[in-house]
């Protein structure tokens, strides 16, 4: 199944942060789907959702972002999904760890809407276009 180029899955336990990211990705032309933790996000994927990109918080209850990234990367049918951490975790070693686990990009909070747009461009992720 080809990735659906129109969806971004926003994974964050903060409703306020999900709302901010929803507004940004909607302005970029995507349809936002939200999940409050890694397990909810996996449920979406198992139900057939194929987002172009996931924004992933690190610290969440039930399943954290790092575990989610590892799970997605170990599932061949999800290999086309672009994974971008969006988190307050800002240590050099954590960024290395997330990249090694299979995250493509990393945004440290706080960020501006332009920063998200810059990263999408960097990743070649555009609404309606599969990189």
């Amino acid at each position, binding site marked *: 199944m080809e990735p659906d180029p129109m969806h971004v899955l926003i994974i964050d336990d903060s409703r306020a942060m999900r709302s901010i990211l929803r507004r940004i990705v909607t302005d970029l032309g995507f349809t936002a789907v939200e999940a409050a933790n890694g397990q909810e996000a996996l449920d979406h994927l198992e139900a057939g959702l194929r987002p172009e990109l996931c924004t992933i918080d690190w610290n969440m209850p039930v399943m954290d972002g790092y575990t989610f990234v590892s799970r997605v990367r170990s599932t061949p049918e999800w290999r086309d999904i672009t994974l971008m951490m969006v988190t307050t975790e800002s240590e050099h070693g954590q*960024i290395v760890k997330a990249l090694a686990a299979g995250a493509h990009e990393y945004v440290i909070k706080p960020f501006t809407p332009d920063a998200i747009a810059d990263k999408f461009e960097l990743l070649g992720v555009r609404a309606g276009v599969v990189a």
Partner: protein
Amino acid sequence: MVPPDPDGGVVTISQASFDYVSALVRRETSMLYDPGKEYLVEARLLPLAREAGAADVDAYIGRLSTDLAERRKAIDALTINETSWFRDNAPYQTFTEHMLPAMLAERTHVRHLNIWSAACSSGQEAYSLAMLLDQHLPAGWGASILATDVSTAMLERVQAGRYGQVEMNRGMPATQLVKYFTRVGSEWEVSDDLKKMVRTQHLNLAAPFPPLPTFDIVFLRNVLIYFDMDTKRDILRRVRDVVAPDGFLLLGSSETTLDMETHWTREPLGRVQTHRPVPTTAGLRMPAAMTGA
């Protein structure tokens, strides 16, 4: 009448204040603040006004005629360009895939490249280029990047090579972040290896240039838009004089040399328009490699 700003707020700066600042910036840097940019002046001077304890931006501007140090800070704040790492991507892709291979083929006898990041602001362009050079220069090659700006505060920032989190998020690939930066408190500092590649120099593009080496590649992006046509033409003519005959000039995506036919020819490379110098009858510069600059 109070002009509205594009974001729907209200600008409180008076016409007299705006006229004074506009004339000051034009006199000191030749940059233009046209009517309609009141909101920009206000946005950039408000933090300084608060820091200086002025009642409002008007009161702060009133001090500038007698307070030289504050005037310097105001000019610095008014000439800052917003910038990001690998801004617009395409120019950097062209740099790596087209300009660099061409220059590597032409400079085998000196194995050194000279690059100019003109109007470097806080240095993201210079360091973005340094990262690419670090990755793509063959062993045994060297490169120097001259980063110039009219703002001394910006040059100090380039030398310090420290950036806040919000700045780091603007276009910096995570793989480059972990490779070239270390965390220092709440900031990130660029590696010494990249700092060694970048040299800073104060330079007002609108004034006659100080002695400069011959450059193989010049990045002069998103700054000409601030100058009037005569100044623009003059800058492009003087830049031509410091670019190697086989060198490249890169402008911003909305900037052109269309009306400068005698000085530059346009050459599309990758997804961007590059510019090559047209030889002059007098004062032909040798390629940077041949001068050893």
